[in-house]
């Protein structure tokens, strides 16, 4: 293993180079831009043979990605925030057309007010689209997740697109040591994509994306639901083969010192690294605090999360998003799907820095077992 110091954006680009997609339509947007730049350089330098399409908007980027995927080849694109929102129409179409596109989303707040900084509102707002969603904790996981995402998306029993979500700036622009795997190992884990039957080929003409009357639409949507639920077995298999080849074991969730914990924090993405430090401090003081990190958000790992948190007296769920008048989305899904009373905490919107003092405040506030939502880290004068 050779570690190199790089940003999560570069780590994603390195993963894409290893996955070797045929087509990369991409439009730059802060804080995703350096992904597009690294990939453009790889292609220009001849390190990748992909067709790099410089489109005029994100709507075009995902449209070109969908068109290319429709011809039965491997495709990559990347975006962030307003770009993802502009893609919204085609995001749903890509899942419905069962195109195994892999896209990186550099998580950034949505306007207004205009912000370039991190929260997860952009990808969370696409949660009903039928895409799989993985939230990475660090650059290494970002790289690894791209490879796993292709493997799962392209499985003939799944054929749904994947979004690998990385926190804007906190991961995209943070450099730390990352292991870039060898091409030979990656080829073993991720063979070239072979489309099954529904792809565009002049020798075998067919139409994809046709008008569907009420006799067929529900079946198509039901098939998507079955495929997304069925993807869980495919993800489990991919994770275990990934661990065999690369030595890094991923799961739907990560349990950090949570097995015997009275108080459990549930969160997604890069904030979990800071939470682990805070958990260690509480454990040093003899307090049974733990973390459950949700890594795969779609398909939603209901059983895994429930098994991990059901024994705790106090549960706090962190959301870097807000479904107005309802609360954080992860918090509400956990309370809706599980027999628990979890407290919800809205944190880190628009790049508000989340400090250990905030995590400690949350741990203290989970002692009131209610399902209410509280905002943490607001400026005092705004409360």
């Amino acid at each position, binding site marked *: 293993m050779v*570690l190199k*110091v790089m940003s999560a954006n570069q780590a994603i680009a390195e993963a894409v180079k290893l996955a070797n997609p045929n087509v990369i339509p991409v439009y730059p947007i*802060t804080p995703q831009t350096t992904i597009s730049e690294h990939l453009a350089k790889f292609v220009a330098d001849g390190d990748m043979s992909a067709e790099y399409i410089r489109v005029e908007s994100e709507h075009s980027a995902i449209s070109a990605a969908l068109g290319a995927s429709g011809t039965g080849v491997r495709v990559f694109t990347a975006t962030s925030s307003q770009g993802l929102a502009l893609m919204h129409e085609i995001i749903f179409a890509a899942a419905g057309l069962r195109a195994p596109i892999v896209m990186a989303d550099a998580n950034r707040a949505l306007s207004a007010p205009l912000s*370039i900084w991190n929260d997860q509102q952009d990808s969370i707002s696409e949660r009903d689209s039928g895409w799989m969603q993985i939230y990475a904790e660090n650059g290494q996981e970002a790289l690894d997740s791209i490879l796993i995402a292709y493997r799962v998306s392209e499985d003939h029993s799944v054929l749904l697109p994947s979004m690998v979500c990385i926190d804007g*700036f*906190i991961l995209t*622009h*943070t*450099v*730390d*040591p990352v292991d870039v795997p060898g091409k030979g190992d990656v080829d073993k884990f991720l063979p070239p994509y072979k489309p099954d039957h529904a792809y565009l080929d002049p020798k075998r003409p067919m139409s994809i994306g046709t008008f569907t009357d009420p006799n067929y639409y529900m079946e198509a949507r039901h098939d998507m639901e079955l495929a997304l639920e069925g993807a869980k077995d495919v993800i489990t298999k991919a994770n275990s083969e990934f661990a065999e080849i690369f030595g890094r074991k991923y799961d739907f969730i990560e349990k950090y010192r949570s097995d015997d914990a009275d108080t459990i924090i549930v969160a997604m993405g*890069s*904030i979990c*690294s*800071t939470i*682990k*430090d805070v958990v260690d401090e509480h454990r040093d003081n003899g307090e049974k605090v733990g973390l459950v990190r949700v890594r795969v958000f779609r398909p939603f790992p209901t059983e895994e999360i429930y098994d991990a948190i059901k024994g705790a007296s106090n549960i706090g769920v962190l959301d870097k998003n807000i479904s107005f008048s309802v609360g954080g989305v992860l918090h509400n899904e956990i309370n809706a799907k599980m027999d628990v009373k979890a407290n919800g905490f809205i944190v880190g919107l628009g790049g508000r*820095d*989340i*400090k*250990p003092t905030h995590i400690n405040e949350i741990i203290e506030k989970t002692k009131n077992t209610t399902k209410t939502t509280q905002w943490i880290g607001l400026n005092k004068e705004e409360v």
Partner: protein
Amino acid sequence: MIEVRFHGRGGQGAVTAAEILAKAAFEDGKYCQAFPFFGVERRGAPVMAFTRIDDQPIRRRYQVYKPDYVVVLDDGLLEVVDVFSGLKEGGKVIINTSNGVETTAGAEIHKVDATGIALDILGVPIVNTILLGAFASVTEAVSIDAIIKIIKETFSGEVGEKNAKAARLAYEAAKKG
């Protein structure tokens, strides 16, 4: 763990400096992390960047509020930003300035005329690599050899050579005090 905060203006290279420092520390066998905090996305706006160095893998991902060391790329920032904020007791501050700087209680201030060195050697007032040379000398948190190596990896050809030379000069000058 050593925590460093850089203060610069957009376009001055504070972010690159934080990354070079992280990579140099890694070259020395340490774990590292570096990340920026941009104000608004335009040249001249105040920018912060952070580097963490440790013997263990680094997890925490919030900004640096209690730095061991502060590096200031532009002394004009002293009037608009509290660069000393949260500085640890006995912490060191390296400032690019050719003027006097008011001493703040508890802070050990090292003044470097990095702009002067930059204009002499590079021909442009870009001071980030020069301050890293001074940083290596003042803090001994990173080796000058690693700093020079990463500077040459970051900037190819003549630009890399000149930046390396400038960093070395600032290192030697700081050694003499």
